[in-house]
């Protein structure tokens, strides 16, 4: 018994010591870029450099490869350390590439190799990815941190979404909805979050939602917490070009699903509790609260209805109407599940909104 234990101890110490991955000798890809340049697939890696002699803190490597994994082998040729993907924070895909190719096949290695991080944010970049990867912004931290912070904080304000690789995979795999991801671009030399990119059920880029439309996508997806802020014009109420800013603090979004006359019918009932965060317009809220509420409700209804029209036009369903169809009208759903985008395009969607002002703000 004792001899066996001793043998086990010795054996333990003999087994693979060469497996370690020392932080010092790694080239950790923190931001992975994918783009196309006339038929060629370009893959970019941005990784931090930990060396006092290096002038730059970030190493950017560009290679031309047929796939991500092949790209990594090529990156290894350039990188001073071993190229690893365990800490990837962002996967940035050029819009041009996303339009051309179905991206799930490109991202396969990130899902298949367990050493890669699947919690990286998926971002569509409007423009050549090269300019983002090689951009040096003096007032920003390292690129990976800057991009991640930008998306995460903007997503809190609902002007974009945060979608990591797992979210993307789940929404792609689910037949009842289609994937979406955050979108970025550069303006005046600075990077900015730019709404939401929508994909079809094969994972091909279809269209984008602007930062102003994205909050209403989130509302439809019941992602209300912590708040959905937006600004509306009060011309209808005061006759002047003035603003009032409100934010939806809590709300209920209910879906009613029916199948009539060979098509699905969805009725979306939104009950929103809003607070007024800014009032430029000259309105006595306490007197005109009912009218104001109606106006807010109308605004929400117009925006959401337009959004749904956009979805139907492009045969995509980022909200997940299909989930309700599957839950309540399974038999009919079963027939169209493989082409839900088309069935959804033919569906009737009506939205009705009730808004209630729950606070005028601290001064009123």
């Amino acid at each position: 018994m004792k001899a066996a234990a001793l043998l086990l101890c010795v054996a333990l110490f003999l087994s693979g010591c060469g497996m370690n991955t020392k932080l010092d000798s790694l080239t950790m890809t923190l931001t992975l870029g994918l783009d196309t340049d006339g038929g060629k697939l370009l893959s970019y890696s941005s990784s931090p450099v930990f060396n006092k002699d290096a002038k730059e803190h970030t190493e950017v490597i560009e290679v031309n490869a047929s796939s991500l994994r092949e790209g990594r082998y090529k990156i290894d040729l350039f990188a001073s350390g071993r190229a690893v993907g365990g800490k990837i924070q962002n996967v940035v895909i050029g819009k041009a590439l996303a339009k051309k190719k179905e991206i799930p096949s490109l991202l396969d290695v990130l899902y298949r190799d367990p050493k890669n991080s699947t919690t990286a944010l998926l971002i569509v970049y409007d423009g050549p990815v090269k300019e983002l990867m090689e951009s040096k912004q003096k007032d920003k931290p390292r690129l990976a941190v800057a991009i991640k912070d930008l998306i995460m904080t903007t997503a809190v304000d609902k002007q974009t979404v945060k979608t990591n690789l797992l979210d993307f995979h789940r929404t792609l795999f689910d037949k009842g909805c289609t994937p979406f991801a955050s979108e970025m671009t550069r303006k005046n030399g600075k990077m900015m979050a730019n709404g939401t990119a929508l994909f079809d059920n094969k994972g091909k880029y279809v269209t984008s939602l602007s930062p102003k439309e994205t909050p209403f996508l989130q509302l439809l997806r019941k992602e209300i917490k912590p708040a959905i802020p937006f600004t509306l014009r009060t011309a209808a109420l005061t006759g002047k070009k003035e603003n009032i800013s409100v934010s939806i603090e809590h709300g209920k979004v209910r879906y009613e699903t029916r199948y009539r006359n060979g098509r699905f019918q969805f009725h979306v009932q939104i009950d929103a509790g809003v607070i007024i965060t800014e009032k430029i317009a000259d309105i006595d809220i306490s007197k005109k609260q009912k009218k104001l509420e109606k106006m807010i409700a109308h605004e929400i209804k117009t925006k959401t209805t337009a959004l749904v029209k956009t979805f139907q036009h492009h045969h995509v369903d980022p909200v997940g109407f299909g989930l309700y169809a599957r839950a309540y009208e399974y038999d009919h759903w079963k027939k169209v599940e493989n082409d839900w985008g088309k069935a959804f395009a033919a569906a009737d969607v009506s939205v009705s909104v009730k808004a209630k002002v729950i606070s005028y703000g601290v001064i009123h």
Partner: protein
Amino acid sequence: MWIPSSLAEVEATIQATWGETPDLVVCRLNVRQLKKDVVLLYLDSLADKNSINNNVLQPLLFETHDATNVEEVAVLIGQKKYTNLWSEVETAVFQGESVLFIDGEQQALLLDTQGWPQRAIAEPQVESSIKGAHQGFIETSGKNIALIRRYLPNRELKVKELVVGRRGKTKVALLYLEDVTHPEVLKELEDRIRMIDVDAVVNTGELMQLIEDNPFSPFPQFLLTERPDAAVSNLLQGRIVVVVDRSPSVMIAPMSFIAFFQTIDDYSTRWMIATFLRLLRTLAFFIAIFLPSLYIAAISFHYELLPLNLILTVGESREQVPLPPILEAILMELAIEMLREAGLRLPAPIGQTVGIVGGVVIGQAAVQAGLVSNIMVVVVAITAIGSFIIPNPDMSESVRLIRFPMMIVSSLFGVIGMAIGLMILVIHLACLESLGTPFGSPFAPVRFRDWKDTVVRFPLWTMRSRPLSAHPIQLKRQTKTRK
């Protein structure tokens, strides 16, 4: 050998027994009570001169009433013993007693005139406490027993005295509550102490090592304390207190692992605070063992473990460090251990210098020179503080030692190695015994009722029974007095 009856022979025997003993006093007097010559024998250095002069010599010389035999000799000493064995005379003299030989008598009179140099009772140095008593044990077992008796004026408190060591003849006293302590546990301890056959037991720590259940374990299986209140609190739980003469710490047996993380202050502070402090100590225990190895594992194997911002900070701080993480860690850990050891043995005024040198050299220079990283310094510092929080010095030292194998294992196998290390540690702790009682109690074996007084401390009135770890024969400690 019997005591000879003629004084001349006695003197010859004394001469033969104590050749080179300048502090031996042999004093021949004529005693009026007996109308006989006597010889008074004592060791000047161990006996109390005042007591001999006033309580022995004075009555012997001036008392006029008649005495016919040894028993009737009037001396002003309460504790008198008679013997006719020479070996007992020897022992008595060496323990500071004085011996009175009377001409023509076979029996000698042993008088308790002990008075050797001893320290005053002072605040315990190693285990200081905020609310506990400020009396610590000293080097005289009689005084130590007195300190304990003050807390328990109870006839169930028994003292069993044994003698250990051929030369040292150390008095070892076993204190226990007869109606609480399990007799088998007591017998086991007594047997083990009786089996000891050594020259001398200089300190309680030596005795502890001679009778431990598992001498190859890094963990202490008995508790050494210099606090009478801690000793009494353990007595009340059915444990046995071993007072070793000439040693300022007493040994408590049997012990359980978790008791090493408890202090007497825990019971005198409010229960929420005590619970918080105990949780803190438990956390400190794990930090002290695992933090450096976790650092090594994270940097050498599992960079994915660290959040992005932390990994960037760590990476930047390691920019100019030439050593691999394991060497960096061992270097720093050894440095801090050396500092500790140096500070421990140095007199207080020089001790400060060590602190400054250590702080400046390690904290500043090593980092600036690029030998170690900032993060490593932080890790080492937190680890050191973690090990200092553990209240028992023996346990704290064990923890500091275990850290090194953990670091090596984690540098070889990363978190897997740490997990294996932790498992071995847990298995070892679950297997350990203290005087045949489970060391891991109440966790291994699981005794839910005793969890009230472990890493949490329930309010005192809810702990109505004594913990089972020492197998007390009387379980009930108190009645329910509050809701």
